[in-house]
C-alpha cells in the first residue's frame, strides 16, 4: 500500500508519560496513512529517542515546556519536525552518535548512550536549526 500524503501535528507536555501517549497517537496516524509495519517500527524508534532527548536534556533543570511533533507524509518520504523551547543545541551541535562499545565484560556494558546512534542509523537525513527561541529538529525518512 502506498502512503497517502498527509500532514498532521501533535503537541504535548514534555513528560515521559505524555510523550508515550503522543508517540502512540502518532504511530496510529502513520499506520492509518499506509506506512508498513517495518517503517512504522523504524520511525517509532527514532521518534522515541528524539522526544526522550528533549524531555531529558532540552528541558533539564527548568520547567518542562511543550513539544510539538509535525509529520509530513509523502508517497515516498516522511519528514518529522520536532519543536521545543528548551536549551539551544547551537553551541554544542548535534551529538555524533557513535556506536556504544559492547565488547567488554558484563560490568562494563553500557546502559545508555544509544539514542543518537539509533537516530542517525535509521534516518536518511537530520537537520537542526534554532528560530525564535525554539529548537527545530527535522528527521527525514525514505518510504520507497
Amino acid at each position: 500500500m502506498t502512503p497517502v500524503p498527509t500532514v498532521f501535528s501533535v503537541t504535548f507536555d514534555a513528560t515521559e508519560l505524555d510523550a508515550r501517549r503522543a508517540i502512540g497517537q502518532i504511530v496510529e496516524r502513520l499506520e492509518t496513512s499506509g506506512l508498513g509495519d517495518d517503517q512504522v517500527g523504524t520511525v517509532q524508534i527514532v521518534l522515541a529517542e528524539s522526544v526522550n532527548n528533549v524531555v531529558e536534556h532540552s528541558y533539564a533543570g527548568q520547567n518542562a515546556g511543550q513539544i510539538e511533533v509535525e509529520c509530513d507524509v509523502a508517497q515516498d518520504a516522511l519528514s518529522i519536525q520536532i519543536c521545543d523551547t528548551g536549551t539551544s543545541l547551537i553551541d554544542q551541535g548535534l551529538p555524533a552518535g557513535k556506536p556504544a562499545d559492547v565488547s567488554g565484560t558484563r560490568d562494563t556494558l553500557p546502559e545508555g548512550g544509544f539514542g543518537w546512534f539509533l537516530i542517525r542509523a535509521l534516518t536518511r537525513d537530520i537537520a537542526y536549526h534554532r528560530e525564535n527561541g525554539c529548537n527545530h529538529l527535522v528527521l527525514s525518512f525514505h518510504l520507497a
Partner: protein
Amino acid sequence: MSLTSTVKDSARIITVNADRIDAAMAIQFKEDMRTETENGPDHVILDLSAVDFIDSSGLGAIVAAMKQLDDHRKLDLAGLTPTVEKVFRLTRMDTVFQLYPSLGAAMATLEN
C-alpha cells in the same frame, strides 16, 4: 507491575506483560527485575513476546538487569518482536545476549 515469573526446568522464566519498555517505565522495570531475580535458578529467561516496542532506556534497563546478576548467572531473551529485535541488532546487543525466537525455543535448549 507488569512482570510475572515462574520456575520451570531449572530456569526462572520472567514474562513481561506490557507492550512497551520505554523511558517512562525503565527504572521500575529494572527494580522489578531485581526483585524477580533476587534468588532462584542461575539461568533466567526473559520472555519479551508481548513487547512491541523498546527504546534505548528500555534496552539500558535490560542490560542493567543482567548486570545485577552475579557473574555465573545468565539472562537470555526470548520472543523478540521485529522492532525490539531491530534495536538489539543495531546496538549490537544481539552479540551480548543469547536471543531465542520464542520461549519454547529457549526452553528446548534446557531440555537437551
